[in-house]
């Protein structure tokens, strides 16, 4: 007998080549648990283009179409329409792409795909930099972070621009389902994907996926850091259905951002003033989200 809070079935096999403690791998495991076998995946250039293993190895129980870096949105559009033409409307079509492939090089194809309204899932596993090429800054890298293209140095050339909110860009497309999730909250993540599964049309879910290699943290801290991201409001968990925001995990008393930052080598260089600045940004973003939630819930259908 076992009491499990997430589905027992595994659709991700062992023997893959992800780094120790890889958050993106945990994300895939949950996504497939939520969706099941009747699924086709498309993955662009990203860590997950390598994780399944070297040819002829494959670590998923579902078919996977590897694609070029910037085309995930177009690829899932093509798979969806071909399946519909074949009368297979029930198959889940899932784009699973990193933050570089989503926030930067792939945003055009993503925007096009969701605007067209295809019945697809787009999962952005957000490890906040180009990790597969070795930790370069993306539009989704948070403010203050070290990466190899924001290396610090005498001129303190860290990433001083705030993280781009792809989830909000998706909300602006008026698609039926947008959510954020992270691996420390698998029940929340899986519930969101299952809810999305009931909705026809484009579904976008951004999953914060800590990367020990790129975030410079000990691999055993992956889940802990993911949890702290939520508890400090660095990465709030919410969903947006038809313009109505709902924060799904609300920390009673948010922890200081410092607790989240101090576990990660990529923020080691930050001064007290800089940490305060980041705290202010986090607080502002959180208030903004609360306003969206309150306002959107007040206006009833």
């Amino acid at each position, binding site marked *: 007998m076992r*009491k499990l809070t997430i589905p027992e079935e595994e659709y991700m096999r062992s023997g893959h080549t992800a780094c120790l403690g890889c958050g993106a791998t945990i994300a895939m495991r949950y996504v497939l648990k939520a969706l099941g076998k009747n699924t086709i995946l498309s993955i662009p250039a990203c860590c997950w283009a390598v994780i399944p293993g070297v040819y002829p190895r494959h670590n998923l129980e579902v078919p996977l179409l590897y694609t070029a870096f910037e085309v995930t949105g177009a690829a899932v559009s093509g798979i969806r329409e071909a399946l519909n033409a074949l009368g297979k409307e029930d198959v889940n079509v899932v784009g699973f792409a990193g933050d570089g492939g989503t926030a930067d090089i792939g945003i055009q194809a993503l925007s096009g795909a969701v605007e067209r309204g295809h019945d697809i899932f787009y999962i952005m596993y957000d490890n906040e930099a180009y990790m597969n090429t070795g930790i370069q800054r993306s539009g989704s890298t948070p403010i203050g972070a070290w990466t190899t293209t924001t290396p610090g140095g005498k001129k303190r050339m860290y990433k001083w621009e705030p993280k781009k909110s792809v989830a909000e860009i998706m909300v602006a497309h008026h698609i039926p389902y947008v959510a954020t999730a992270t691996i420390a909250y698998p029940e929340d993540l899986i519930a969101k994907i299952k809810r999305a599964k009931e909705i026809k049309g484009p579904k976008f879910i951004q999953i914060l996926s800590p990367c020990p290699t790129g975030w410079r943290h000990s691999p*055993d801290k992956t889940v802990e850091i993911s949890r702290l991201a939520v508890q400090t409001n660095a990465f709030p968990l919410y969903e947006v259905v038809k313009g109505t925001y709902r924060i799904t995990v609300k920390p009673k008393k948010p922890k200081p951002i410092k607790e989240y930052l101090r576990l990660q080598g990529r923020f080691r260089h930050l001064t007290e003033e800089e940490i305060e600045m980041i705290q202010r940004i986090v607080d502002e973003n959180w208030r903004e989200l609360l306003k969206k939630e309150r306002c959107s819930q007040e206006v009833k259908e």
Partner: protein
Amino acid sequence: MAIILPEDPTPIARVPSTENKTGGWRTFRPVIIYEKCIRCFICWKFCPEPAIEFDSPDAYPAPKPALAKFDTVKINYDYCKGCGICANECPVNAIEMVLEEEVEE
């Protein structure tokens, strides 16, 4: 000798990755202390490999009789890379990370 060509026209990966035993990557080995294990399956839930499997309730001694009906977990060392998430997340510190060289067989 004749040229050896793949049968497929394009690379189609079909061999399960499980043939790749990633246990060799491990520096630290998670060791479950069954006397402490409360069979909550949190380690199973967060394992990125996944390399934590279920075992029968009586495969290991239960710390409390009330837990004896629940399945146990065991680590598949063929695949465990030793990341330590299980040990870090265990609510009762029932998993110890031991340097591979110091593991007593």
